[in-house]
């Protein structure tokens, strides 16, 4: 099983994320999966989205286990509050997360408020993606592997200055 996104899915996600960015005055929004893959993002210009995704998925998974330990079904969202920036992570469904970074001039309440309709739209979108399955779009050719020698290039000499 794989998540297969076509350009139309990504366009729809960008609309939802840009709307959230604007309404909540956020700095960056990202959709990632629980394995830590970035599905799409907007606004993460000066941060590494892949690292935020890997750590965000880890944090959320850990918080779920904490919830279970405390007898809760789950903590539906996680907030990390910093001096200048904060992070809001919430589940879209059992596989997908929405991660929002916002400055402290924005309000946590607004982020939570506008994240709710964004999550609903993303949930509907992913229900369609999952229903469609992982088959290849009809206009795409099958995958062909390159020569394995070219995959990672030649390693550099670590001892070289």
């Amino acid at each position, binding site marked *: 099983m794989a998540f*297969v996104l076509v350009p139309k899915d990504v366009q729809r996600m960008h609309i939802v994320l840009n709307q959230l960015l604007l309404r909540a005055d956020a700095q960056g929004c990202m959709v990632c999966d629980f394995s830590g*893959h970035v599905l799409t993002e907007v606004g993460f210009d000066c941060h590494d989205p892949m690292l935020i995704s*890997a*750590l965000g998925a880890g944090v959320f998974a*850990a918080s779920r286990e904490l919830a279970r330990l405390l007898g809760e079904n789950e903590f539906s969202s996680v907030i990390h509050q910093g001096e200048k920036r904060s992070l809001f992570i919430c589940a879209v469904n059992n596989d997908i997360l929405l991660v929002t970074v916002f400055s402290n001039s924005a309000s946590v309440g607004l982020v939570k408020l506008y994240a709710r309709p964004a999550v609903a739209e993303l949930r509907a979108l992913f229900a369609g993606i999952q229903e469609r399955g992982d088959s290849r779009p009809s206009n795409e050719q099958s995958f*062909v*592997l*390159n020569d394995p020698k070219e*995959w990672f290039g030649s390693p550099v000499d670590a001892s070289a200055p």
Partner: protein
Amino acid sequence: MSFINYATREIQLKIVYYGCGLCGKTTNLQVIHQTIRDEAKGSLTSLATSQDRTLFFDFMPLTAEAVRGFKTRFQMYTVPGQVMYNMTRRLVLRGADGVVFVVDSQWDKMQQNLESFANLEENLRLQGDSLDKIPYILQYNKRDLPAVAPAKYLEFVFNNRGGVRRPSVSAVAPRGEGVFESLNLVARLVLNRFVKQHGGKENADQQFQLA
């Protein structure tokens, strides 16, 4: 679970280094990070204790030109090896497309290796996967130390599931020996399965034959 984005022409796959405490999982990623060219790697992030033991995971993204017309991103993770961090191992293992099981070759680590291997099987089973389905390789690490088990013995103990042999590599990770061989082997297995699952064709010379 792999991820294909036809909009950005990108494929993402997850590879997890698994094994008992102090077997050399983090060292593998450190060596790859030191030696691979800058354009192909992201930063190596370690969530470790003050004693440099992995607490949650190590993470490093790698980019490869593996599939024609697509950028292939490998998300490389290690799990914490210590027995008490099993819940964390389960979280990191979630959605893995391939595993490198690192064996500490020293005689006095055999029990821990066996427990870790059984733990990998159990954690895969809990996420609906199994060693029969997931691509994995075995890396026999620390071959330079004095009291190590012979490779044949390790093959008999770890590479004999149901009569099927998996690829295995002898390694001395701090010196880089066997590190890239392991990476290339697991990447080949993962990509061959990916291509097969999505109706693509492997060329005969690109196909990796199990030992």
